[in-house]
């Protein structure tokens, strides 16, 4: 597998890109918020500037209005002019107060405003004095005051200060507008650049993911190839194993067959010998009679004893030969049966275990009642397996349970079943004589038996049972306590996993 970019590096890069993209987004967001805030404060400032300009002009206007109405009054001595004049001062003060609120933040503005306020105060004081002089009837004095020109000087100063301030504010406004424009431009740039970067990162990410996907695809195909290979290997192995097994089965089969042939002869000619015995001994008898006729009669008794002894010895020898042959035949037949079972084809089907056990119990019911045995069967779960094999397995186990009871106890056989996720487990439990733990393996071996040999049997049943259970993909368990009873446990897969063809 040639990967230019190992997985961890790819992941790192991917994470890095994602992180960078995220940071960029955060940056753009922060910059945008900051710049928008800036733009807002710029426009707020601009509004303040304009408002200050406005109010300063207002003050100038108000003072001028006051002055002109005062002049009007001085000219006409008509006190109606004074109404305007008297209304002007509070108005001016109010505007100044408003300006104070606006100028708090700036020392320059505050000092300008102080100067404006001082001048306005001075002007109004001067005007009030003149008006008071006039009202007191000192008109000449009042006019002299006007002529003296202090009021005009104050006015000129006030105008200058205000114009200066307005100009300064104007400049400020220009600066602010410039800043605002710059801010907006920056905002645009930041947004555009950020977006471009994010798009770039996205593109790189997509490229990386695609590249990685392609690699993963290649890897997956390689893996699939490897898997297929592995499956092939497993298939070969299984085939080998199956073949080896079939070889063993065939071997057992052929051997037992070929052993049978000479056995037929041994048996046949032994029987022929037995048949000959009659003739031989009849011949002996005849000869003995002839000899007796020739010799005197005294020896015949001994001769008769001897020939009877010969007959007994002959019979004994032939008897042993025949028993041995019968035994050998039984053994060979057992091997044959096992090998035939090993070659039998299984037909997996869903087996109703209750019906199956019920059938077996029916066939042994006569024996069970003779033994006064009770058989208890729980509700058993079904299993997918070979019906015939299951019958043989449980038939054998129940048969054994009936066979090996105790004399001092009524036999009690319990058959139970349960399911796990994958297996069906069946117990055949008895309270019979039990099996010594040392013999747990032995009882499953061919021609081997355990305990007192007082019951008929070949030592084949359990070997057969275990071979079948194994072939069905299951396992065989045994738990027992001598003198208390045994429990044989058959565990079978719920779904057929065995081989349909032959032994594995």
């Amino acid at each position: 597998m040639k990967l230019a970019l190992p997985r961890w590096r790819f992941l790192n890069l991917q994470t890095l890109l994602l992180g960078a993209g995220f940071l960029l987004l955060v940056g753009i967001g922060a910059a945008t918020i900051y710049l928008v805030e800036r733009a807002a404060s710029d426009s707020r400032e601009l509004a303040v500037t304009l408002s200050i300009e406005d109010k300063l002009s207002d003050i100038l206007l108000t003072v001028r209005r006051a002055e002109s109405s005062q002049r009007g009054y001085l000219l006409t001595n008509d006190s109606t002019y004074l109404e305007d004049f008297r209304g002007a001062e509070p108005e001016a003060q109010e505007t100044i107060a408003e300006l104070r609120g606006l100028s708090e933040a700036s020392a320059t503005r505050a000092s300008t405003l102080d100067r404006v306020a001082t001048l306005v105060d001075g002007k109004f004081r001067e005007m009030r004095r003149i008006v008071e002089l006039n009202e007191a009837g000192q008109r000449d004095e009042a006019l002299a005051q006007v002529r003296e020109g202090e009021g005009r000087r104050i006015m000129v100063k006030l105008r200058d200060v205000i114009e200066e301030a307005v100009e300064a504010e104007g400049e400020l406004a220009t600066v602010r507008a410039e800043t605002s424009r710059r801010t907006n431009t920056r905002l645009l740039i930041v947004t555009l650049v950020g977006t471009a970067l994010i798009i770039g990162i996205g593109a790189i990410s997509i490229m990386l993911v695609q590249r990685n996907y392609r690699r993963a695809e290649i890897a997956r195909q390689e893996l699939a190839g490897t898997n297929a290979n592995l499956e092939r290997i497993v298939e070969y192995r299984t085939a080998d194993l199956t073949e080896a097994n079939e070889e063993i089965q065939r071997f057992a089969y052929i051997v037992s067959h070929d052993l049978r042939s000479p056995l037929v002869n041994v048996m046949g000619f032994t029987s022929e010998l037995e048949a000959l015995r009659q003739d031989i001994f009849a011949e002996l008898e005849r000869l003995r009679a002839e000899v007796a006729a020739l010799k005197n009669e005294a020896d015949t008794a001994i001769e008769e004893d001897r020939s009877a002894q010969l007959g007994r010895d002959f019979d004994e020898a032939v008897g042993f030969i025949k028993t041995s042959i019968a035994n050998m035949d039984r053994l060979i037949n057992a091997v044959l049966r096992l090998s035939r079972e090993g070659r039998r084809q299984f037909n997996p089907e869903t087996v109703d275990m209750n019906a199956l056990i019920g059938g077996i119990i029916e066939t042994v019911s006569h024996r069970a009642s003779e033994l006064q045995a009770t058989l208890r069967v729980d509700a058993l779960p079904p299993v997918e397996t070979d019906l015939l094999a299951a019958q043989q397995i449980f038939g054998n186990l129940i048969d054994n349970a009936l066979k090996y009871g105790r004399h001092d106890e009524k036999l009690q056989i319990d058959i139970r079943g349960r399911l796990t996720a994958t297996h069906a487990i069946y117990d055949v439990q008895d309270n019979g004589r039990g099996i010594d733990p040392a013999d747990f393996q032995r009882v499953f071996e061919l021609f081997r038996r355990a305990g007192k040999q007082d019951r008929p049997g070949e030592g084949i049943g359990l070997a057969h049972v275990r071979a079948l259970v194994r072939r069905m993909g299951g396992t065989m368990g045994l738990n027992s306590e001598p003198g208390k009873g045994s429990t044989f446990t058959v565990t079978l897969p719920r779904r057929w996993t065995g081989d349909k063809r032959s032994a594995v």
Partner: protein
Amino acid sequence: MNSRTSERPVEIVMIEDDDGHARLIEKNIRRAGVNNPITPFKNGTDGINYLFGADGSGLTSKGKPLLVLLDLNLPDMTGVEILGRIKSNEHMKRVPVVVLTTTDDALEIQRCYDLGCNVYITKPVNYENFANAIRQLGLFFSVIQVPSPE
């Protein structure tokens, strides 16, 4: 087998590799009172040569009243093959074939009947049964009708 259908008595061709078996079979056939000639062969090749002749056409057996006793486990070939050849040969397909063997495998038995064997007998190890079976076979031989030669 005092065959009333043919001039000559029926010849029993026995293909059996085990001398002992051959002897026991012959003894028991004779005990059943069957006196037909028995021609024994110890392997498949000799039996085939005798039955089918040198050219393997089977013409030699044409018109001969025959009965074949066949063992399946032979050293040089399986009896099944011989059975197949007899039953597929134009001149011999009507010859009765008795398969007498130790094999009691159900599949094998089926295969023999499928190929056209007439009787299939398993040799029992128990001599009582063996002798009995052969004697019965002998009785069977004495009543069986083999097809008359053309």
